[in-house]
């Protein structure tokens, strides 16, 4: 495939510093095959950050696994700041100490996002597969606010907690968060494995969407409520990662560069590594990034659809995982000839034990 003439400038870099994590959330966004053998060092991350900034990246999302599992996290944060990037720590807060947090604030960290599994303690700890998780998260959230850092609470929503949107937002308010994300589970990797256990009903989803609207009005000016839509119940697909190879770069713990965190599920894509190529070379020329750039790869109904510049045909990983073809229209779209498959999957609910993600 020809390289498109104008390759856009990326905006965000998702830096998966490690796949190690003390928690076992059954919807973890890490791949089923975790990077275990090798983690690139802080000096390599520093180079990646400089190359990212030169490409136009403005924000780096320091994620994992649990990024605090890396002892050199303060060095990594400092390197992102030195490169001129806005740094966002995406953490479970478990394994993050007040001392480390203070060092991160000194190193120039801009923002902290803490995941909370539920407002009900027993349920939260059960979902995380970690006793005492919620208590630790509350304590660290307090430290974040104490240090004057802005705090976002991220709440992943699924069948076990979808009825508690209101108290979850209340919890975020009580922790002095300035922002809360109500993120319905996206079914990839571990979440796909646990799909029947996580899937809410249509009635629950409708009520949850209504609740978010009500809470936005009630708390206007006090907390920002952002929502990630439950896409199996949507009419149109999400503009996944803002379009393939348009805005986002994902670097795995071992230095492999992906257009999105789930991209490795698509067979036949060739990913390049920061150990062998500069980020700029990878962004512009690597086969994986060019695989679904532009519109030449699209099939009908996307190819002639008025929305193709808005949602880019949806998610390539979901097209592969559900429709069996990475070039197909995301089957979440009601215009997809395979949309019935999504409706069938959304109707499967089984109360079984979670398959916890384990490192």
């Amino acid at each position, binding site marked *: 495939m020809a390289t498109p003439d104008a390759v856009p400038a990326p905006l965000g870099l998702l830096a998966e510093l490690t796949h190690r994590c003390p928690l076992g959330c059954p919807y973890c966004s890490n791949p089923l095959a975790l990077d275990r053998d090798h983690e690139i060092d802080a000096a390599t991350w520093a180079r990646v950050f400089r190359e990212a900034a030169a490409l136009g990246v403005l924000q780096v999302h320091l994620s994992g696994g649990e990024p605090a599992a890396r002892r050199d996290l303060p060095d990594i944060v400092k390197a992102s700041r030195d490169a001129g990037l806005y740094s966002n720590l995406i953490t479970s807060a478990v394994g993050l100490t007040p001392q480390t947090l203070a060092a991160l604030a000194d190193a120039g960290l801009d923002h902290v996002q803490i995941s909370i599994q539920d407002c009900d303690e027993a349920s939260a700890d059960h979902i995380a597969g970690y006793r005492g998780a919620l208590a630790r998260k509350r304590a660290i959230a307090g430290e974040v606010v104490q240090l004057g850092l*802005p705090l976002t609470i991220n709440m992943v929503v699924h069948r076990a907690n979808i009825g508690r949107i209101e108290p979850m937002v209340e919890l975020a308010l009580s922790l002095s968060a300035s922002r809360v994300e109500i993120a319905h589970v996206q079914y990839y990797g571990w979440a796909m494995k646990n799909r029947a256990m996580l899937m809410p009903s249509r009635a629950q989803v409708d009520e949850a969407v209504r609740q978010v609207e009500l809470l936005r009005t009630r708390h206007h000016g006090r907390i920002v409520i952002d929502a990630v839509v439950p896409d199996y119940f949507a009419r149109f697909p999400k503009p996944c990662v803002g379009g393939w190879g348009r805005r986002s770069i994902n670097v795995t713990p071992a230095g492999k560069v992906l257009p999105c965190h789930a991209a490795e599920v698509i067979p036949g894509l060739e990913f390049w590594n920061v150990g062998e190529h500069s980020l700029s070379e990878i962004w512009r020329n690597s086969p994986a990034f060019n695989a679904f750039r532009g519109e030449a790869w699209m099939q009908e109904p996307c190819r002639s659809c008025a929305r193709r510049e808005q949602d880019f045909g949806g998610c390539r990983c979901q097209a592969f995982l559900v429709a069996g073809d990475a070039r197909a229209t995301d089957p979440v779209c009601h215009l997809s000839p395979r949309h019935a498959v999504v409706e069938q999957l959304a109707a499967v609910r089984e109360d079984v034990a979670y398959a916890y993600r384990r490192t």
Partner: protein
Amino acid sequence: MDSSAARLTGDARPRLPRGVRLAQSEAQGGWVLLAPERVFKADTITVEILKRCTGVSTLDEIVDDLAKAFTAPRERIHADVVNLLGALADKKLLEV
């Protein structure tokens, strides 16, 4: 529900909180406002207003300064400033 605009009185000293900052990006085509998991393009007027939101100057001083710098009617500048800052405060991107 409290309106942020109502708190923007003449003696308020607005400032960007930690985690919200202006930056210049050649690759992204100019000034941007960086915030928690969000990026906004900032036009010239927005940049001129936000550069003055240091927590030191009062709203009245900011408006006077802008009216002088742009030789524009004070009332219009005041309305623009309160509109912008009120919207940012509602999004938790400005401290009043």
